[in-house]
């Protein structure tokens, strides 16, 4: 016959067994079980939470360190220096077709090296392609008809390579008096820059700083002298050296 386990029954059991070893074993065993349960359900989650917290702290500290470093770096670059660097790079490799820059380079270099430009033409191309998609480098091919000895023309091309915007010579042909040249002026590069301030900012290496110095010396120093050169395909897009920002 089952009797319900009520308070009175428990009291009877208590007085019956309280001086026996069973009671002591039971009580302390219960304490051990409670301790075990506390470890499982309280202490271990707390340890996990603590470890997770420490990891988060380390991560946040690293981010703070990076951002402080970024801020110090930005403060170390003067506004004028940074503007100048940006300008040199945009001169060297414009992000869009820089017809005005190309014209200036061709004419200024011709006047410096003493060759005579008979005429020159360049392909405007599709106006929609003025801005390249993706971080690629495109080229505007310019065909030049130049009067001068081959030596003079070679000097002209060498000088043109050391003038901004950057160019590469793709074809030369001619005789002792005149030559046809094809020069590809380069543009493009980074079109869209998305940077997370939490990421470390790139620092200019010594090599890149030296390159900036070189490019700075390549900038045309003399304003172009207007010459009677008639581009076969006129540029409707001159003065395209605008900032992307």
């Amino acid at each position, binding site marked *: 016959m089952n009797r319900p386990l009520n308070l009175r029954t428990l009291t009877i059991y208590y007085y019956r067994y309280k001086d026996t*070893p069973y009671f*002591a*074993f039971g009580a*302390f065993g219960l*304490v*051990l079980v*409670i*301790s075990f349960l*506390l*470890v499982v359900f*309280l*202490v271990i989650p*707390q*340890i996990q939470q603590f470890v997770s*917290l420490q990891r988060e*702290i380390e991560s*946040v500290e690293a981010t*703070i360190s990076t951002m402080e470093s*970024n*801020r110090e*770096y*930005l403060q170390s670059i003067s*506004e004028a220096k*940074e503007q100048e*660097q*940006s300008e040199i*790079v*945009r001169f*060297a*490799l414009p992000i869009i077709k820089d017809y005005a820059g190309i014209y200036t380079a061709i004419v200024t270099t011709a006047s410096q090296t003493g060759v005579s430009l008979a005429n020159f033409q360049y392909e405007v191309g599709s106006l929609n392609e003025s801005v390249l998609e993706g971080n690629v*480098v495109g080229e505007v091919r310019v065909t030049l008809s130049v009067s001068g000895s*081959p030596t003079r023309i*070679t000097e002209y*091309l*060498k000088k043109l*390579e050391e003038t901004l915007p*950057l160019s*590469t*010579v*793709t*074809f*030369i*042909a*001619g*005789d*002792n008096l005149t030559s046809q040249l094809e020069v590809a002026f380069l543009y493009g*590069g*980074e079109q869209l*820059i998305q*940077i997370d*301030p*939490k990421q470390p*900012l*790139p620092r*200019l290496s010594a*090599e890149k700083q030296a*390159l*900036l110095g070189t490019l700075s010396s390549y900038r045309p120093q003399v304003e172009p002298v207007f010459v009677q050169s008639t581009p076969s395909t006129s540029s409707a897009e001159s003065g395209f050296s605008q900032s*992307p*920002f």
Partner: protein
Amino acid sequence: MNNGINLVVKRVEPQAALLQKRIKLLRIIALSGLGLVTLVSIVLFIMIIASPLPNLREKESNLFTSLNQENSKIQRVVFVDKQLDHIQNILATRTKLPAVLSDVLTSMSGIRIVTYSSTPKAIEMTLETTQLSQIESLLNTLTVLSEQGKIFSTIVVSDLNVSPSSNSYQFRVSMTNDV
């Protein structure tokens, strides 16, 4: 008190003593275990509560806001770096045609250029001279330049013609990178 007036000497069974000892041991283990668990839990609780994370988050947020105000400058700095990468690549890969042609032309003293054409992979020239020795001299110089890697590796001389009227030799020089 009952023990004090009991005249019968109380005998403690060895088994009961062992049991008492075990109970005592169990009590120590149980209570110290509970105490330890409680202590560890309290310490962890305090460490979690006293975590510097909220302050760090606030500092991070302030820095982020501060840097975001300089976003245009950051973009320009990154732009300069990325464009310089492109420029380095361009300078490393662009043709050295004017330099090659210049080296070739400097080796042509006394030789007249009739026609010439050049691409990044080849140079074709029709030349004219009055002395055969100058052809030999030219070829020697071109060979040296080629060995120095300054000009193209393959040099071919062809179509040597003699013009009795002008008493000159006309010939063609082809230079390519093909082996």
